[in-house]
């Protein structure tokens, strides 16, 4: 099923909710109370984004040898240094890069990489080893150890990713805060929730269901009533992805006590006719992110925000016969924020000469990136959340 048609049709599940709610507006929190509240925004590119045509190693001749029909012309590349440059569809990010708000971490991956979309996505979302099956996500485990409310982690989507599910705590999926709020106005449901408020909720599954429902109600209420106090005035492109980032901006700027936001963009599985397909998606990505970063700068929240973009794997160095690329391994991670300690290109460009069976060898374990975010941004010891302690990096 196409994701777009799913999103459209899923509206029928919740009915449509056009009725204006009778709500008591809350005062926006004072700015002083809000500053210093750190947020992490995770952007997932689904399908396996081709990192080599995203941050292009144009200074390496091997790139042009291995990709004779899908390489990006040198003259079109937005150069960053004498080795790497941006895909022209990401030109909006040049300004962000020049301001020192962007980090590129090359060759991120893990040992014994899996080339299956869903398995590798699983590994990235749970933070597991390649031969380990975890049923909780890394953000979910962060919630388990550090947070009390499901709104501590919000996925701007209709359904919740594994990354956001812990053993005891789970994040909340909110595509549209008003729609979620309206869903909770169903009189019969309100009755169920209300009558259960004061009874002792057991530890059994029925108690768990009622607790989840009650928690959903209070979160929906809190998110709607807090977020509606802020109106995003900055310009965003008219794409669903940019709209999701705009929603995140609204949440952050209204002062929601949310630590982690999660957003996804799909369409990166480019086996056939890659240039157009990936180009379209990268433009959606680059334009959306640039608008988001500038918006946060304007509102004074960029110093408190860190954005991380990842994909489940990169693609093979050599193109295939259909002007596309097949599933590969290591990939770049892009980081944005106002407080980067070493902005720009963080480490060496990928080594295209020393390959593992045609694939890039990873230089940085993705869990060292997670560890950095946990230790230095969310202030929690990464060994509590990850399967063991990781040393981390120095980008913040």
């Amino acid at each position, binding site marked *: 099923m196409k994701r777009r048609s799913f999103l459209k049709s899923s509206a029928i599940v*919740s009915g449509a909710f056009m009725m204006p709610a009778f709500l008591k507006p809350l005062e926006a929190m004072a700015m002083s109370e809000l500053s210093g509240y750190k947020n992490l925004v995770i952007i997932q590119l689904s399908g396996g984004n081709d990192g080599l045509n995203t941050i292009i190693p144009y200074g390496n001749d091997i790139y042009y040898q291995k990709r004779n029909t899908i390489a990006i012309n040198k003259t079109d590349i937005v150069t960053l240094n004498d080795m790497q440059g941006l895909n022209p569809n990401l030109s909006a990010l040049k300004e962000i890069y020049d301001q020192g708000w962007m980090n590129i971490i090359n060759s991120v991956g893990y040992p014994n990489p899996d080339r299956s979309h869903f398995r590798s996505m699983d590994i990235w979302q749970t933070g597991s080893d390649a031969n380990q099956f975890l049923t909780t996500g890394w953000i979910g485990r962060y919630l388990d150890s550090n947070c009390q409310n499901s709104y501590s982690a919000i996925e701007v989507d209709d359904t919740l990713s594994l990354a956001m599910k812990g053993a005891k705590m789970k994040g909340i999926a909110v595509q549209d805060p008003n729609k979620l709020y309206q869903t909770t106005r169903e009189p019969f449901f309100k009755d169920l929730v209300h009558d259960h408020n004061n009874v002792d909720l057991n530890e059994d599954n029925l108690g768990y269901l009622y607790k989840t429902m009650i928690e959903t109600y209070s979160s929906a209420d809190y998110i709607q009533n807090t977020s509606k106090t802020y109106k995003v005035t900055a310009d965003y492109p008219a794409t669903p992805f940019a709209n999701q980032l705009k929603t995140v901006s609204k949440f952050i700027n209204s002062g929601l006590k949310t630590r982690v936001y999660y957003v996804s963009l799909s369409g990166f599985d480019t086996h056939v006719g890659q240039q157009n397909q990936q180009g379209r998606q990268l433009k959606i990505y680059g334009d959306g992110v640039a608008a988001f970063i500038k918006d946060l700068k304007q509102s004074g929240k960029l110093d408190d925000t860190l954005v991380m973009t990842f994909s489940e794997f990169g693609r093979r160095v050599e193109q295939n016969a259909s002007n596309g690329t097949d599933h590969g391994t290591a990939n770049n991670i892009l980081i944005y924020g106002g407080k980067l300690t070493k902005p720009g290109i963080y480490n060496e460009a990928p080594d295209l000469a020393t390959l593992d069976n045609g694939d890039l060898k990873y230089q940085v374990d993705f869990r060292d990136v997670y560890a950095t975010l946990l230790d230095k941004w969310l202030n929690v010891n990464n060994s509590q959340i990850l399967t063991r302690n990781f040393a981390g990096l120095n980008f913040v």
Partner: protein
Amino acid sequence: MDNIKPIKHLFTRAAFGMRFEDISDEKHLTTKAAVKQLFKTSDNSDPIDIIQDATDYTMLMKGDIGAKKMFLQEQRQQEKDLNLAWIDKMSKTDAQLREKMTLFWHNHFACRSNRASFAQQLNNIQRSNALGNFRTMVMEVSKSPAMLQFLNNQQNQKGHPNENFARELMELFTIGRGNYTEHDVKESARAFTGWSFNKDGEFKMRPFVHDDGQKTFMGKTGNFQGEDIINTLLERKETAYFISNKLYKYLVNETPDPAHVSAMADVFYNANYEIKTLLEYVFTADWFYDDKNTGNLIKSPVELLVGLNRQFYITYQKPEVLLLFERALGQVLFYPPNVAGWPGGRNWIDSSSLMYRIKIPSTLLNGGVIDFTGKADPEDEAYIATLHNQQQAVATKVQAQPDWDKFLNSIPKDASKMAIAQFMLAPKLNNTLINTVTQATDVKQMVIELVSTPEYQLC
């Protein structure tokens, strides 16, 4: 309807729930008779054969972009067809126990395949062996193209073995973690070298890439073949325990009682892995009907949807809507999250999936409207009015047709509202629900309320 509780419990666990029409069936008078009847109606295994694979896969290699696009479209269509064919089968079959167990094995031998014909074949292996012999099933699953492809055994060759299949065979399919060593994984992978399939999807043992040297596996040395490895694993009682434990979580309680599981493992092992013998033991054990083992399992999304389809005799003009529900609730058949399957239990539930779960029944049954019998405040009135305005639009989109006449007529004439309510839900009614039932003036409205509750998520 007085002594229905144990038989209703049996139906919620061994099948997809009891219907009112099942109450009058004299074959369901005692649990013993009902167990017998469940096996009898599941005697025959009727395969799914919706996918006729005539696809020329060489086209994918040679074809131009247009041909490839068409190929991918057809592939997606076949995946949908297969998914819906199985949902339809579960929703209509009399062989409920067989389908319920097929769903268990679908999750146990979890697999994804981009060839729907392979996925269908594996599903049929799981169905035909669902109540049969576990050893036969492991052998057949291990030789199925879907699994060989999924766990990379096509790449498992003499000199450079791929250990993926051997590892999952032990960790997830038979003996479980802690009962084998890394050395066992390496050696058994060698025994499976050369296990592959031809272009028609038939199992082929390729002797040229098979390693026929000596292997040392679990303390024994010999020129083992794949079959020897599987037999050695099943000689170990830990395998009987591992499967019994998993089955206990599926049928009885998420927190296994070690004494009960040990007893199951004894039965299973002594019966040479006959699944039917094990199930009969479980369904006739006193502890199966204990209060602490009733009404406490969270239905999987598929159990929830199939249960609604069966209870209300729902027909779909546009069955694709079921795929949306599967996706929204986090269980798309033939798309398990990984080889370990769906983790189940509380993992099904988060804020959004729970809200979908309690909203889907009324969406299917009544265009999204839950007629509210309590006292409504002004805000509620406006809300209810909006829902009524949209009722027709939602119904037109969903195009699901419950058979209310059949449902209402099947309710025993002497059944009180309270008895009907308790029949619909596995857990005891709380005060809110008792009020709801007391105030109800219309059975249909009351039933829609009851299936829109957290209680209805349990079985």
